[in-house]
Structures are given as C-alpha cells and as structure tokens.
C-alpha cells in the first residue's frame, strides 16, 4: 500500500514528460517516413560470369565481351551541368521562343541532317536533382535517396556497384576532366583525371577552361575507352545570373563552338581504322534548372534535361516504329528535327549494354531502344546478309532486354531479402507475376524460335515483339514501384507529423502552466510582479529568434554564432539586472567573459567545418592559424588538459567531504576520481614522449578506456540500486544536490574520455557556466511565490547549444568525430560504436545539461520548502527545458518541409534535421530517465508535515 502510494505520488510529477516523449516519437516517426526516403545500398557487384544464371543467350562465347555484345568501342560523355531541355530542343517545340533557346544549333543540325546516327532525347531525371545525387543515379542506374544506408556513411565515395566501377573492373580505361565531384565519388577508378573545384559558384570559367584544355588533346589519344568531361559553367551562370541573362547565353554560345569542334575532331578520325571508328558521343545534362537557376527539387523545369547521342558509324537501320517514341517538328530553318524521350534512369543500363560490360548490380533502368540502336552499326559485319536489318536489331535487342530484366529481378529479390524496409509483399508478388509471364514466354517460345536458324521471320517477329513488350511491362512496373518508394515525399505523413508535433507543443505549454498553478493561488503567471512577465517575454523573444533563424540556410550554417550571439545578449541582460540589484556582479561579468571565450572556440570549430564542408570553403580562421603556428601550443595542448583534469578530481574529492554525501553518492564520486586518474594515465601512455616506456601500448590504448567505461556502468548501476534501497533520511534539497552531483560525475568520466584532450577544459567551462547561470538565477528575491525561471532555463539551453559547437561539433555527418567511437576498441560493432559516438557528440550538450538541471532548483531556495514544492518546481523546469528543445526542433521540421525543394536540402537541411530530431528524442528520453531518478514521492500536501517529512 505504501509502495503504491509512493508510485502514484511520483507519477503525478512526471507523467507529462512521458506523454511528451510518446507524442514526439509518434510525430518524428510519421514525419521521417514521409520525408527521409531511405534505401539500402547492397554490397553486391555484377560479374561477367553471372550471366550464365540467366535464361538468356550469352553473347558470342569466343568473344572477350561478357553480358551483351559490345557495339561501341569508345565513348565520349560530355556532361553540361544543369542543361535545360529547352537549351537543346529547337524553339519550335515550345509555345514561344525565348532568348536562351536555339543557342546550341550544332546538336539539332546534326540530328536533322543524320536522323539515324544522331538523336536528341528529352531525358527525365529523378529528384533530388542535385549534381551529386544525379551523378550517383546516372552511374548506378538507381534512384539515390538522401539516406543511402551503406558502408559509405560519412564519405561521399560510391561503394554501390556502378557503371564506372564496371568499366574499371572490366579493364576499360576512363579519363575524367571537370567537376571534382567525380573524383570524390570515384576516387580510384580513373586512369587520368583533371578535377577542378566545383563549389565556387561565382567562377564561371575555371572548370570549363580546364575541361577544354584537356579535352581536345585527349581526343587524339588512344589510352582511354571512356572519356568524361563535365562542364559547370551553365550551372554556375544559372545560380548567379539566372537563365535569362547574357552570361548564360555567352556560355551556351561557347559550348556550341566547342561541341562543333569536338564533332569535327571525332568525324575526322572516324574513317575505317581511325581512332574514332566506332565511337559514340553523348552530350547530356545531369539535371535541369528553373529560370532562377535553382535545382534540387522535382519540378518539370528541374527534372527535364537533354541527352544528345551521336554515333560516327552509320547504323543499320531505324528502330521499328512501335518501339520508337520520337516526335518531330520543323525548326526555324525549315529542317525536320525529331526528339525522343527517355528516363535518365536508363542511362547506366543502356551504356553498359552498348559497351558490353555487366550492368551495375543495383540498376533498375531498361535499355533504351533508340539509344541502343545507335550502336547497331557494328553488327553489320557479323550478321548474315540475308536477314533484314531490323530483324538483327530486334533479335539482339530482345536478348539484351532479357539480360536486363533478369538483372533487375535479381536486384529486386536481393534488395527485399537484405533490406530491413523492403518492398511490400503485394508489390513483390505483382513484380514476380509480371516477370514470370515474360520469362515463360521467353523460355517456351522466343528462345526456341531464335535457336531455330532456319525459321523465317514470319513467326519470329511477332514473338519477339510480344517478348519485348512483356519485358517493357516488367521494367516499367519495377521503375514505377521504385519511384514511389524512393523519390516521392509523402506530404500527408509529413503534415500529420507536424500536426502531432504542434499538439505536443500545446500539451507542453499546458503542462508548464499546470505546474505553475500548483504553486498556489498567489503565484499565477499573470498576477505576479511584472518583472516575471518581462523576463518570460524576453525568454520567448530569444526562443523566437533562435527558432526563426533555423528557417534560413545561412543562419543554420552559422548556428553556433547565432546561439552565442543570443547567449551573450542574455548575459548582457543578466549583467544589467545584477547592476540594478547591485549583487552578483562577478558572476555576470564572468558569464559574459565565458560566452566571449565560447565565441572564439566556436570560430575555431567553424574553421574545422570549413575544411570539410562544401558550403563553407571560403571561410578561413585566423585563430586556427595562430594556434597551429605557435610551438608553445604543443606543450600547452598536452599538459594543460591533464592538469585541469587532476584539479577537477581534487575538487570532486573535496566536495565528497561535505556531510550530505552519503554512501552511494560518495562511492560513485570516488569511482569518478579513479576514472579521471586512469584517463590521465591513458593520455600519458598515448603521447609519444614517454608512453612506450611505461607499459605496452595496447594496454594503455584499449584496456584503460574499457575500465573507465566499466566503472561508469558500475556507477550508474550503483545509483540505480541506491535509488531502490536507499531511504531518504536526509534533507530533500541536499539529497537532490547529492544525487545530481553523483549522476553528473558518473557520466563525466566517459564524456571527458571521449572528447579527448579538450574534454577537461570544456568540463570546467561547463561547470563555470552552469554555476554562473545558477547564481544569476538567484538575482531576484528568492521568494517562494516566484514561479517559472524560464530565463535561466533558456540560458541553460543556449549554453548547451554553444558547448555543442565549442567542442568542435556541427550539424553534418562529416562533423561527427568518428575517432571517438574507437577509443578503447579496435574493431567495429555498430551498436557499441554508435553509442560511443552519440555520447561523444551529445555528452556535453545534452546528457550533462539535462542531468544537471536539478541544480537550478536546488540552489534556488535557501530554506527547506518541502518536497512537494521542490518536485513541482523540478517538474516544471524539465518540462520547460523539453519545451525549448521541442520548439527548436519543430522549426527545423517546418524548415525542411518548406525548403524540401531547396538547392541545399540534402546537403544542409536534411543533416540538420537528423541531428535535431536525434537531439529532441535523446533529450526527451534523458528527461524521462532523469525524472525517474530524481523524483520521489511527494505525497504530503499537508503543509505542517512538509519539513518533517523531508
């Protein structure tokens, strides 16, 4: 009975936190499924020999080719970044003529003068239409999403099977020039590469001139099979000046001249025995752009781009009309120009088929019939003369499609088998039945007819056509399914998620007000003195600025500075307050100094970010320069942290001598001191000068951290046990202080160890900052009536954010300190390393602040006011802290929803979203845990009993 009462008493304070956690979990789950499309990268690769498992004919067995019969020998791919479809297509295709149209006349002239060997395609890209994602999509033949779960987490290199990898594996030599994204994606695959930096959008010419400088000499050389030249001028001109601008037109004119020259050079070498006898030229865009030059989203302007392909060998024939998708128009010069349409998804499969290499394992594209037909010229020699040309094409195309369909089916099966979130069962069975139909027809009729050499084309042709249509049907079904799964935001889900998030905010406000009401009649928010109202108004003002700053990409990039600006502002306000009250001047000045120091640390952090981040290349910090130049710095860097850590340990030791630290807390703190000493030993052995002499390196490197982790776990266990068995004989306020100190010290050793040498210094800064906030909180008269110290909680939260940035973190995946995950462990284990990484990332900015929050309550009241009062305060405080985090995260969520078609959505907003959401959930979980740990029954509402009960 007593136990039950006790429980009920406890739950009375903490139930709002659990409901908040639940609401947040639901909201985030719904929103994330709608927004963050995920796909698992499979670690499988296609091999030449695989094709024997397919029901199709292998290509001629004596040949050195493997999957399909190679029909071109060399391939020149010229990528013009952000090439809009209407740059290429004649203006007569559109309702009205615009200044930027018809600026690449060479392409349409070629396609009108040689309709069978040069073709223009309208290529439909899939969102996200950013260069990196598109290059990934083009080469893997898949649909890259934001979170491609795989081994490449954190590094941009593509580990999935792809076109370039297949070229490399099959001995084809690739030469690349232009955009350096290629070398990031494929660091080891190029025979030669001439990369140029791509993120300086203001520079219209460096990349293009570099490309041109290397392109023409390379065209005369023999040492490559595939040449890739990626021009960026149009993209950059669009970003800076927009599409309807003089620089854009100049760029297009320039490209037209260069393309003319390229075609001339290739043409001149295309005679029998020439260097480019069997070369295919592809000029393509990776995505389109809007009239303002933006891209990234899925609007028609952004996804419509063009592919121009030209073969220098006269192909056999045109494609049978039923597989051709062209539409023709008379252009301004009176020539007939035909334009076909294709999906960019099909690019990898088609190019692989043309070159005769295995299709990338994860490709879900189909071989485009018209593009494939451009390579048909090389079959002339091999084919028997008596057959009609279109028959030869059909036979070989049907076989290629057979391989294609088999490969796609293999991928879908493997994906469903290995991915946690695969396709639904219904979808899979539909795919399977469509494939079975096509395959049965192939095995039972088409294959026999093809093997039967004597048979005329009368029976074969209809069967082949049926077969090709069946494969088309299958491949289209798969592509549709994949698109719906991997490229479309589910706006309903996102909307529901936001709705629930807003409900949870309303609930939190209700919980805060409810707690405020419990203080009693004379302490409602409105009837109190006006300084409380202004203080909470100011808190709301700060919170409002901080949240709204998340709506802009610039402020997100400099979030640390924004948080610090607000922190300093709050410090100045606090200083003003302390001048008014004429007390605590030292604390407020100290706090201001600390926030100034934070600001310098954040600048150092930003300079680290600039070194890796794509968006911050220009940023250079003078502090980093000074820091790296001073030789004294080396020594300081080595010894100061150890010294500080020892001082910390000493301070803790003195603290334990205080009377109210009873047995569990005391032993916990002693354990922490031991851990600190071990950490110092660990650092000494780790450093070069005197490490080796003391003990074998591996012991220092691995065992000491493990011991520290073990001690920390033991401490937490002890605290939990103490919570269960300990009777609260003490004064409840002192009890709370002891509990908080013990909890913080239990966590601190691990956090400091993981943070490395900067750990102790940040720990001291946190202690000083926390102490100042705590003291400044007392600036108002400590009266029992005063509710809501929202201002100090806001400071607490801002300070935590600043510490996150001070300790060299930032909201991007390359900002994670992966090294920290391997302190004490050599080998990778997902869960263990993820936990360590999370502790490193959020140790100082979430774990310690959340567990340290009771200090704000405990130091506030000098006299013993009773448990009920204390716990109501604490519960209100935790709810407020959770509310602040939730508001910030809600704005991040709103931001990604609004900006989901923004250029930087995958580079900047989505990582920020992931970090914030993780932060919110972690904060909620920790608040719940802390509430279990700190709260006790406060069931005595009888005021007379309050003090005696505690």
């Amino acid at each position, binding site marked *: 009975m007593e136990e039950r009462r006790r429980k009920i008493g406890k739950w009375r304070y903490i139930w709002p936190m659990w409901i908040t956690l639940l609401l947040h979990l639901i909201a985030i789950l719904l929103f994330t499924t709608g927004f963050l499309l995920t796909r698992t990268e499979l670690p499988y690769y296609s091999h030449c020999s695989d094709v024997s498992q397919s029901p199709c004919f292998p290509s001629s067995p004596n040949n050195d080719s493997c999957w399909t019969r190679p029909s071109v020998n060399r391939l020149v791919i010229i990528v013009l970044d952000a090439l809009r479809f209407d740059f290429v297509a004649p203006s007569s295709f559109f309702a009205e003529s615009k200044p930027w149209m018809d600026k690449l006349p060479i392409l349409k002239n070629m396609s009108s003068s040689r309709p069978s060997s040069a073709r223009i395609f309208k290529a439909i890209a899939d969102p996200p239409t950013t260069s990196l994602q598109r290059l990934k999509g083009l080469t893997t033949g898949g649909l890259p999403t934001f979170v491609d779960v795989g081994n490449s987490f954190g590094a941009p290199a593509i580990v999935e099977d792809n076109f370039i990898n297949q070229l490399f594996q099959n001995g084809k030599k690739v030469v690349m020039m232009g955009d350096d994204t290629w070398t990031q994606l494929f660091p080891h695959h190029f025979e030669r590469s001439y990369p140029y930096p791509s993120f300086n959008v203001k520079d219209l010419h460096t990349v293009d001139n570099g490309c041109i400088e290397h392109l023409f000499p390379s065209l005369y050389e023999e040492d490559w099979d595939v040449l890739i030249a990626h021009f960026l001028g149009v993209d950059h001109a669009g970003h800076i000046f927009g599409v309807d601008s003089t620089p854009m037109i100049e760029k297009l004119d320039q490209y037209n001249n260069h393309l003319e020259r390229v075609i001339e050079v290739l043409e001149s070498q295309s005679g029998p025995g020439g260097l480019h006898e069997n070369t295919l030229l592809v000029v393509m865009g990776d995505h389109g752009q809007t009239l303002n030059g933006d891209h990234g989203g899925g609007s028609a302007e952004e996804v419509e781009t063009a592919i121009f392909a030209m073969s220098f060998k006269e192909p056999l024939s045109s494609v049978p009309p039923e597989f051709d998708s062209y539409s023709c128009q008379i252009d301004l010069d009176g020539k007939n120009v035909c334009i076909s349409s294709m999906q960019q998804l099909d690019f990898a499969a088609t190019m692989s088929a043309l070159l005769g290499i295995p299709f990338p394992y994860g490709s879900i594209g189909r071989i485009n019939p018209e593009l494939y037909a451009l390579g048909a010229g090389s079959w002339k020699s091999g084919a028997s003369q008596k057959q009609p040309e279109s028959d030869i094409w059909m036979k070989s195309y049907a076989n290629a499609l057979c391989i294609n369909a088999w490969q796609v089916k293999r991928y879908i099966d493997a994906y469903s088998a290995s991915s946690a979130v695969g396709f639904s069962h219904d979808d899979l069975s539909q795919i399977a039945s469509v494939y079975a139909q096509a395959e049965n027809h192939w095995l039972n009729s088409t294959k026999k007819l093809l093997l039967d050499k004597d048979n005329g084309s009368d029976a074969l042709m209809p069967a082949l056509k049926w077969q090709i249509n069946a494969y088309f049907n299958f491949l289209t079904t798969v592509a549709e399914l994949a698109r719906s799964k991997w490229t479309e935001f589910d706006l309903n889900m996102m909307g529901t998620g936001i709705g629930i998030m807003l409900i949870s905010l309303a609930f939190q406000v209700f919980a805060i007000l409810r707690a405020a009401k419990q203080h009693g009649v004379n302490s409602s928010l409105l009837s109190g003195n006006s300084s409380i109202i*202004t203080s909470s108004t*100011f808190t709301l003002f700060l919170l409002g600025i901080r949240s709204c700053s998340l709506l802009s990409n610039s402020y997100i990039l400099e979030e640390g500075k924004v948080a610090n600006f607000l922190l300093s*502002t709050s410090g100045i*306000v606090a200083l*003003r307050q302390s001048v008014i009250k004429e007390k605590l001047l030292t604390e407020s000045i100290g706090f201001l100094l600390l*926030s*100034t120091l934070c600001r310098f640390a954040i600048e150092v952090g930003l300079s680290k970010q600039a070194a890796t981040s794509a968006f911050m290349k220009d940023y250079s910090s003078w502090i980093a320069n000074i820091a790296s130049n001073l030789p004294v710095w080396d020594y300081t860097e080595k010894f100061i942290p150890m010294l500080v850590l020892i001082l910390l340990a000493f301070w803790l030791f003195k603290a334990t001598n205080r009377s109210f630290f009873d047995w569990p807390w005391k032993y916990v703190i002693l354990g922490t001191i031991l851990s600190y000493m071990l950490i110092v030993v660990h650092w000494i052995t780790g450093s070069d000068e005197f490490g080796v002499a003391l003990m074998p390196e591996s012991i220092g490197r691995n065992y000491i951290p493990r011991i520290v982790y073990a001690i920390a776990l033991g401490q937490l266990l002890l605290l939990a046990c103490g919570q269960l068995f300990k009777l609260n004989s003490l004064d409840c306020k002192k009890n709370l202080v002891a509990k908080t100190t013990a909890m913080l010290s239990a966590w601190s050793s691990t956090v400091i160890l993981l943070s490395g040498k900067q750990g102790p210094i940040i720990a001291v800064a946190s202690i000083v900052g926390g102490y100042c906030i705590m003291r400044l909180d007392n600036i108002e008269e400590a009266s029992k009536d005063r509710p809501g110290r929202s201002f100090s909680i806001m400071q607490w939260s801002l300070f935590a954010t600043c510490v996150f940035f001070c300790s060299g973190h930032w909201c991007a995946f390359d900002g994670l300190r992966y090294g920290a995950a391997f302190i004490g462990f050599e080998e990778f284990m997902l869960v263990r390393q993820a936990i360590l990484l999370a502790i490193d990332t959020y140790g100082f900015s979430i774990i310690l602040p959340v567990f340290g929050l009771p200090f704000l309550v405990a130091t506030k009241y000098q006299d013993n006011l009773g448990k009920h009062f204390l716990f109501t305060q604490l519960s209100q405080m935790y709810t407020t802290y959770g509310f602040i985090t939730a508001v910030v995260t809600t704005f991040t969520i709103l931001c990604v929803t609004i900006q989901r078609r923004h250029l930087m959505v995958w580079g900047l907003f989505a990582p920020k979203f992931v970090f914030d959401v993780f932060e919110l959930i972690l904060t909620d979980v920790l608040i719940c845990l802390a509430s279990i740990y700190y709260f006790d029954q406060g069931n005595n509402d009888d005021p007379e009993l309050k003090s005696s009960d505690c």
Partner: protein
Amino acid sequence: MDPRKKVSKEKTAAASKPSVVEASPSISFSEAFTVNLLCGLGLALAFFVSNNIYSIDLVTDPSLTLFLISIIQLPIVILLYSRYRLNRKKCSYLRAVGRGIIGVPVGALLNSLGAIALGAPVTFQYLPKTLYWSLMMSLFTTVPASCVLGSSWADRKRIFAHTKPNGSVEYLICLQAHGAVIGGWFGAWPMPLDWERPWQEWPISVSYGTLAGYLVALVASLGFVLAHPRLQHVKNE
C-alpha cells in the same frame, strides 16, 4: 554595446529603491528640439563631407566614414550637453567638457568589449573599423551622460539600468543611448546571410542599425520631452 544599457525590453518597472532626485536640469521643448536638430545636422554634415569631399560612404570606406562621423559629432555632442551639466555651482563648463572627453575612450572600450562578446571580428584587418565604430557608439551613448552626470554611478544606474530618466535632458540621454544600442543589435542580424552584399561586412550593417536607432530615438525623445510635464504631473500624484 554597453552592457548596462543593453536592453530596454526588460524594463524592470518594479525597481524597489526610489533614487534620490537631484536638481536635474530641465529644458524646454524648443531647446531640446535645437539640441536634437544640431545632433541630426551633425550627422548629415558628416555624411555630406564624406560623400562630396572624400567621395566615400559607409560601404566603400567604413573606417574613414565612421571616423568623420565621430570627429564631427564629437564637438557638437560635448559642447551641447556640457551646457546641461548637473551641479552647475560646483562644476564649471570646461570641467564638463573635460569629463566628456574622458568619457570618449572609456565608452569606446565598453562598447567594443560588448561588440566582441557578441561576435565582432577581432582581426587586425578589422581593428580600425571596430575602433571607429566604438568611438561613434561612445558619442551616442556614454559621452552625453559623462558631460551631464559626471561620474555619478547612481545617476547612471538610474538612467541606464532602471530606465528611469528624470527631467528632459535625461530623457534625451537615455532614449538616444538605448536607440543606438538596440539599433546596432538589430543591425547585426543580416550579417550571416549569404546575400554576399558588401554592406553585410562588420561594422557596416551594425553602423546603419545604430544610426537608424539613434535617429528614431532623436525623434522619439522629443515626443517624450513634450509629454514630460504631464508625466511629472502624474508622478506627483
């Protein structure tokens, strides 16, 4: 940004101690209007000089422009406000001018420290700009107070921390200082945006904010001076 004056948003209306009201100089509306007009004209003159004689503005050469503003405003502010010094018997006009001049570097130091705490760059490249900006800030915030109040800590506290000015001159001082600081604070907002405009550099946008806040305060303080007799009347009741 002098910390003590930082924020008027958090007015502590319920300040407990009633401060000792000294014989604060009260001036008529027309006189206050003249003072404010002269300050405004000084700014206009500074911009006129920098535009037409040196053909520069805040964006092209912030250091020199800020320096010109400071050097032109300096005599105007000190000479004008020294006329309204407290304790006229003990303190001569020249002495008020003298302490006004001492107030310049002190205020500049406080302002620049505040700016650095809030994130102003501290490279050598920005050193002159920060210096001239804080000189200008000092003229808008502390110098008038130094001239009028001298080193009286209680009076300064009353005006800047409690925002309880007493008499029309103190209204001018208090509002203008708050206007300049709050304007500068808001002026820092556009700095991180990626518009890549030259005026986003430190301290150009902050200076614009400061000047805007100051000009608004010049006008607003006149309104307060107009309403002042009435306020006094209410207080007495």
